[in-house]
Structure formats: C-alpha cells, structure tokens
C-alpha cells in the first residue's frame, strides 16, 4: 500500500516531547564552550541624533569583556537589499549618527554570563538629541519629516502608474470607495531570534542561526561583513517558529558574527521577548484604498487598489510586498477592468518584512472587504455577489488582468462547498431571527474566497530546490534538503517520499537540513514552497537513485536494465520474475556509494485557493465579537500527509482570526511602542478560537509530479477577511458599513454608537 496521502505521525515528535528540541540557545557544541553572552543596547527613542556613547562604566562592570559600538566595526552601512530601492536608504550595522526606531541596536555588551549582560547594558550611557518622528505611514508619505535626508523622500519605491484612469468607473451604476487598514502585526514566533558564532582555528566562522534559509543568511552576512561566504558555515539548529520573520538573516545576526570575530571568542545571543517585539521585523502594515464599481445586478465592472506600505525604519522585504498585493489584487474575480498602484515608505518604526502570507493576505483582505461593501450598497447577499463575479473553473493556465498566470482552479466549487458545509441558508435565517428579536448577541456571517501565489522564484530563473539522497550499506538512508523546516514536519514528509520510491521504512530515513557545508545552495522554507519544490526535489532525487540502482543491478545481474524491477517490500531490485536473486539498495551501496544529488525546477509558482465562512457572535452591549465557527475549504492540490496539511491550515486560521479580532502592534505619536511585551500585545490564546471545520478539496497542479501546491499560508489569507467580514456583518443592520481590524470590543462598540447617531 502506498504511504502517499496517509496520516503518518511525525518522526520528529518523540524527541521534541521527551527531551525537547535543540534550539540555538540549547546548543552544547564544544565550539561554544566558554562562549560570551551578547546583549544589545537598543535605542529607547524613535528618532534621535546620537551625541555620544559612553561605555566606560559598563566596561568596568563585573564579567564584561567588551562593549562594542559602530566605531569598533568601522561604522559599516549595509547597502539597500534590492536595486529598485532608494539607494540612499542604507542600514547601519549598529547605529552611527541617528537612530530611527525604538529597538535599533546602538551597542553590544559581551559578558561571561548572561545576567551580567543585562546589568552592564544598563550602564552604557547614550546621549540623544531627539528628532521629530514620522510614525504614521500617511504622514511619512508627505515627506515633511525625512528619515534619510540624503534620499530627499521617505518613498523607497513605487509600483504602477502615478495617476489613475479617470474613466475606469464610467458606466457603473454603483461605485463604493473605502480606506481599509491592514494593521501592523508582530510575527512573534515562540522562539525569538538567536545566534551563536564560533571563530575556528582554520579561519572559518561557524554560525548557528535560528533561520528559515541558511544559505541566504550566509550570503547576506558575508556581504554585510565583507567576508568570503566560503569562510562561513551556517548551521540551523531546531527552529521554534518563523512565520517569515526568520527568512535569511537580520543585521543583528551579523553583529553577533562580527563580535565573535572582533574578540576571537565564541559568542551567543538569544533575544528576550521584549527585545523580539521591537527588533524582529513586523508584518502587514498597509493602508489600502479600494474603489469598486458595477451594476445593481451584482456584476462588478471595475476595481482599483491603491496601496500604501509602511516599511518601518529600514527597507526590508516589506518594501516589495505591495508588488504581490497588486499582482493578486483581483484575486478570484473576473473583473473586466483593474488598476492598482503602490508606494512603500519608511517610518520611525520597526522594519517590516514577511509575515505568514506576506502581501497576499492584504490583497485578499482588500478585495473581500470591497465585495462586501459593494454587496451592502446594492443590497445583495454577499455570497451571490461573489458567485456572479468568480472566474469560472479552469484547467488550462488562466492569465489575470494583472498578469498573474493561475495554474488550476475551481473557485465556484470551493465557495459552494464552504457554503454547504456551513449551512449558509440556515445561518442567514438564524441571523434574521436574532435581528427581528433584537437579541443582545447578534450573528455575523463572513465569507472570503481566495487564491494565492505560492512557491515564487527567488531571484532570476524558475523556482527550484535541491535534494540529495544516499542509501547506506546498513540499509538506512540520508536525505539532504534545501528546505528549512521549523515545525512543518519535513523530516516525516520527505522520509515518506523517499520511502515511497524505495521501500526503505521511514524510521530508517534521516532528513538533514540547514547546514551550508552540506547543502550550500538550498533555498529554504518560506512562501509556502517546501513540498511543491523541496518535496518534489526529494522525490526526483529518489527516483534517480532508483534508476541508478537498477542500472548497477543490471550490470551485476547481467540483465537488461529494462527488466530490473523494484521490490519495495524488501527495499531491493531484481530481474522481473527472478525475485530470489535480488539486490537490496543497501547491498548496492556496499561496493560503491549509492547517492544522487538533484535539482528540481518548477515551471512557475502555483496558485492554491479556497473559500472560508466565519460565524461570529457580537454582543451589542459590550462590542465583544466571538468566533463561533470557521468553515474552510483550502485546495492546496494533492495532499501528501493530511495530518501535516491540516496542522498548517489550523495555525493559519488562528493567525488570521487573531488579526481580524485582536492583534495589532501600535505606537504612540512619538513612536514609542505600546505593545512590546506579551502582556500588552494581544496574543491569541486557546479560549479565543473554536475547533475549526475543515472541508476537503484537492485540485492537482501539473507543475510538479506530486500535484502539490503550497498550504502554509492559506489559512491566514482566507480566514482574516472571513472573520473580519463576519464581525461587520453582525452589526451591519445597525448601520455599520465598515470598521477596521482588529475588531476589538471598543472599536465595535464605538462603530455601533456612531452608526446609530448617524455619524
């Protein structure tokens, strides 16, 4: 029986459940014996000139070995990560003359013990002269306060044409426009950032990083520090979550490496949560202005999306995410006319990078809110409006108005399945009854239909990933993968793939990742790419290994290779009809190494899709919205291991619901973070979500032999607008047309009050 598509429990788990994983902070490597502890001194101000940094008192504190500032490293400025960015916006490794956000690193303290570092860091005296900050992205876009005066603007880059087509909505009976906030979120993986660096006697630096992409991290750090990448070995220990905020490396990681090289001793760093909340990149942070126009029969004729992206103080991946937002702007809909533009700006806040979905949740959220606004305006059921505008089912590539090429999709079917599983008509009937009775708790039903882009290419060329497989004489096998699991279960899933082709049991297949000496050209895990490219690479490598084994066996058995068959029951090959003279893969590995290295290249990214229905109950007296049900169809192509795929979906739903209901990272007018601990940031707990209702649908993609699309980010993309729409729907009969996320009790309560006063 095939192992493919079965619920295999994870091979990773026994260790994680009994002795715990080995995260960077848990490392006991001999190379790290006597490691110094690094503590960052970070800016407490959003925008200020540094007048002086006095390290004398800190240097005299117990256990302090060194206190390093930008001057100790030659005041390096890291160039903008992409050529299309405003090139005057460079990032200092450590702050030089100006700090631009609360949390920006100014100095580091190296101590023998961890607690000593916290003591000594408080003794570093930095004299600041405060500058006016640009905190709100809309203020920053006006260029009144400039973060980089030499740039002459706060705009990092723009997308699309500067001016819109004035005739776009000509002929529309109804036109609705709305500014929609997609608020800033903290990625907040349970393990914060961590690094350890050990200079070796051979002149090489070993760097352990909690990262999603070791090779990219190595390249970035080498580039920033002016080192030959060959002199750095990055090793990825177990990683306690990433959600996009651990793609590659941060400048802070390079500081750890530079500090180790400066003092010639191993150095380790694991940030505190309070540090993580202000210094790890944040996500989302867009203001989207949507305009949607059409006829009263529900047909949308034109859609416009105007994106303003807050990028925080230094341009990171966040600056290019509006490109994805615009690409996916029209989403699942066949709008005849679409236009969009975007502007990425710097602000005196924590830099923005990827966070689960990264640019696509924003696109889906904007259009799904727009459709509800349009439906409300014409008085039509939101499900009906969607049905009227969906792209019909297609099996040949579909090119959208924005140039995206969707591989396969059946959006009407996804919506139908979600509505049916939800019992949509009954829900609407119950809602009507509650409204009629004037119940304190009103029902809200929210819908979203989504399509997203997964497995995009990194850099030029087609998306690809590497895999190696070797069978050893003892019958075990080692798989090296370029992906970088941090909870996704690749050790199990990749073993399933290798086992399927060879018959070697999964317990005997060991999956290794994240060591740049072993896999120097791996890409990593982000953008929902791992199974469709990394998994496909493992399958391809294993199939090539089987071919190699057959060829060798043909020679040894003096047979035609075409007559050699695989006996998976014995992990062996033999001449068809002569099973007695079989050679196991292990035997074939005895005389000569049996290993294959393979690169899988996909023709392009894939486009998973789905439909979500959220049911919320809103207490009109308190404004409290409770998520009662979330019904979700997520079509990610063919599923390899339903247990793992469902786990990915669950996590995404929770993060989506959390954005819709609770989470927001906020600053005051001076740029001081207001939510910089887990006591003040509204982190979702088990009481705020129900068990989720998953509905199956699997439309294979032809872009890889597994038929797999990405699933890691689908949950956030679908759930966020569904839950948000549900909350608005619950109070729409009271006159509320829109309220921004997070839909906190206070915000819902105020929206009801204002609607009733006719404001």
């Amino acid at each position, binding site marked *: 029986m095939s192992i493919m598509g079965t619920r295999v429990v994870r091979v990773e788990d026994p260790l994680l459940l009994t002795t715990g994983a080995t995260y960077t902070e848990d490392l006991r490597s001999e190379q790290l014996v006597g490691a110094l502890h690094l503590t960052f001194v970070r800016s407490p101000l959003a925008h200020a000139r540094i007048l002086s940094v006095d390290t004398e008192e800190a240097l005299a504190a117990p256990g302090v070995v060194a206190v390093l500032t930008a001057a100790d490293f030659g005041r390096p400025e890291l160039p903008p990560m992409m050529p299309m960015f405003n090139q005057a916006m460079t990032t200092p490794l450590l702050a030089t003359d100006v700090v631009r956000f609360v949390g920006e690193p100014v100095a580091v303290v190296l101590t023998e013990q961890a607690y000593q570092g916290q003591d000594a860091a408080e003794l570093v005296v930095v004299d600041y002269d405060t500058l006016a900050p640009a905190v709100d992205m809309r203020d920053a876009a006006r260029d009144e306060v400039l973060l980089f005066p030499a740039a002459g603007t706060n705009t990092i880059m723009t997308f699309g044409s500067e001016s819109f087509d004035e005739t776009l909505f000509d002929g529309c009976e109804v036109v609705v426009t709305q500014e929609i906030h997609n608020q800033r979120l903290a990625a907040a993986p349970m393990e914060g950032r961590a690094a350890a660096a050990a200079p070796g006697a051979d002149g090489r630096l070993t760097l352990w990083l909690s990262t999603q992409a070791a090779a990219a991290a190595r390249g970035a750090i080498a580039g920033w520090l002016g080192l030959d990448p060959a002199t750095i070995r990055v090793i990825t220990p177990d990683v306690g979550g990433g959600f996009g905020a651990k793609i590659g490396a941060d400048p802070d990681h390079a500081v750890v490496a530079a500090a180790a090289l400066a003092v010639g001793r191993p150095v380790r760093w694991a940030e505190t949560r309070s540090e993580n909340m202000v210094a790890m990149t944040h996500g989302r942070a867009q203001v989207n202005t949507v305009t949607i126009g059409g006829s009263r029969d529900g047909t949308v004729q034109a859609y416009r999306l105007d994106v303003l992206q807050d990028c925080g103080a230094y341009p990171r991946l966040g600056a290019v995410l509006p490109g994805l937002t615009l690409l996916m702007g029209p989403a699942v809909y066949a709008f005849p006319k679409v236009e969009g533009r975007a502007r990425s700006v710097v602000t005196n806040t924590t830099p923005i990078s990827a966070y689960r979905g990264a640019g696509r949740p924003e696109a889906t959220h904007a259009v799904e809110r727009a459709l509800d606004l349009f439906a409300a305006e014409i008085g039509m059921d939101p499900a009906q409006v969607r049905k009227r505008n969906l792209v019909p089912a297609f099996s040949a590539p579909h090119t959208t108005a924005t140039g995206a090429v969707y591989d396969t999709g059946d959006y009407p079917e996804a919506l139908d399945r979600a509505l049916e599983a939800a019992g949509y008509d009954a829900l609407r009937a119950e809602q009507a009854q509650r409204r009629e009775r004037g119940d304190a708790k009103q029902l809200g039903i929210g819908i979203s239909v989504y399509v997203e882009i997964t497995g995009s290419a990194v850099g030029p060329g087609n998306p690809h990933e590497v895999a190696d497989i070797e069978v050893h004489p003892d019958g075990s096998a080692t798989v090296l993968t370029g992906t970088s699991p941090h909870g996704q279960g690749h050790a199990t899933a990749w073993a399933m793939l290798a086992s399927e082709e060879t018959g070697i049991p999964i317990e005997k297949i060991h999956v290794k990742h994240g060591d740049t000496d072993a896999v120097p050209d791996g890409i990593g895990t982000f953008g929902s790419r791992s199974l469709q490219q990394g998994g496909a690479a493992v399958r391809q490598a294993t199939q090539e290994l089987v071919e190699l084994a057959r060829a060798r066996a043909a020679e040894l058995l003096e047979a035609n290779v075409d007559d050699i068959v695989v006996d998976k029951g014995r992990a062996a090959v033999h001449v068809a009809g002569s099973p007695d003279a079989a050679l196991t893969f292990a035997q074939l590995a005895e005389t000569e190494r049996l290993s294959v290295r393979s690169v899988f290249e996909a023709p392009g990214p894939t486009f998973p899709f789905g439909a979500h229905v959220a049911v919320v109950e809103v207490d009109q007296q308190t404004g409290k919205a409770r998520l009662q049900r979330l019904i979700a169809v997520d079509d990610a192509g063919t599923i390899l291991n339903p247990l793992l795929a469902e786990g990915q979906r669950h996590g995404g739903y929770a993060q989506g619901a959390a954005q819709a209901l609770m989470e927001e990272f906020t600053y005051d007018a001076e740029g001081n973070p207001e939510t910089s601990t887990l*006591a003040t940031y509204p*982190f979702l707990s088990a*009481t705020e979500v129900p068990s989720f209702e998953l509905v199956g649908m699997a439309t294979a993609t032809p872009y890889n032999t597994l038929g797999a699309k990405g699933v890691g980010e689908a949950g956030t993309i679908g759930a966020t607008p569904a839950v948000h729409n549900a909350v608005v729907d619950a109070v729409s009969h009271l006159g509320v047309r829109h309220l921004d996320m997070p839909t906190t009790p206070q915000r819902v309560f105020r929206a009801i009050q204002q609607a009733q006063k006719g404001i």
Partner: protein
Amino acid sequence: MQVTTTVNGAQRSDEVEDRLLLVHYLREVCDLRATNVGCDTTSCGACTVLLDGESVKSCTVLAVQADGREVSTVEGLAGADGTMHPVQAAFRQEHGLQCGFCTPGMVMASVSLLKDNPSPTEQQVREGLEGNFCRCTGYHNIVKAVLAAAGSGAKA
C-alpha cells in the same frame, strides 16, 4: 544561596545566585534544556513545570523558592523504559505540536490540568490552557490531544 531540590525524582544541592530564576536553574545548572523561555512577562507558559505537583511558570519563580521542593519537567515525564506519558503520546498522535517550542510547557500544563480535572470538556481544556501560548497549531490539535489523553475524545 544553597538550594536543595528534587528534580525529576533526583535530589540535588547547588549554590546559586539569589536572583537566579528557576527556569535558568533548570536549564543551566541542571542541564535540563527542554523547558523554554518564551517571554519575560509570565504570559506565554513555555516555561511551565510542576512544583510539588502544581504547574508554575518557572520564569517567575526563583530557584531558591524551590528549596526543599520537588520540580518536575517534561524530561521526567516518560517512563523509565522510555514509554511516553499518555499526554506526550496523545500530542504525537494528534499532531499537537509543530515547532515544539511551547510543547514542554504545554505538556506539563496539560498534565496538571488533567490531574485537576480528569474528564474535561473542550471548553475546560481551552480555559485550562489559556496561559500557554502556541503560535503554530491554532490550538486545534492541542485541545484534541488533551481530550484524547483524558480518554474523552469522543465527547469533543
């Protein structure tokens, strides 16, 4: 200060700094590194261990406060023959963990919850684990695992 504790059944005595947190004592002095630190405000529960059988957040207990008491961490949960505790086994079976960082604390909190209430409802499990954060699972399979461990999965 001198602290004498029984950690996972073994008594030990150590000279520690007064301000040393229990979690750092376990990780650095006892070399038991399964218990993680996920925040600095006693919010996330990653550091949950049992102190005299009661769950505590070990980032908010001083090592010296454990003097004369018994500490249990996830490392001490499995049987001597390596058989996983029913809660550990259920977490695996139900895919109640992904990155694993919250897991040791989550498992210990679940053990404590089931000790107090051997047959909880889904809502009671959710409320019982409110102080333990997970960013990966959406809590769905954690709740399932705890209910399965309680032998009340059918009631969920």
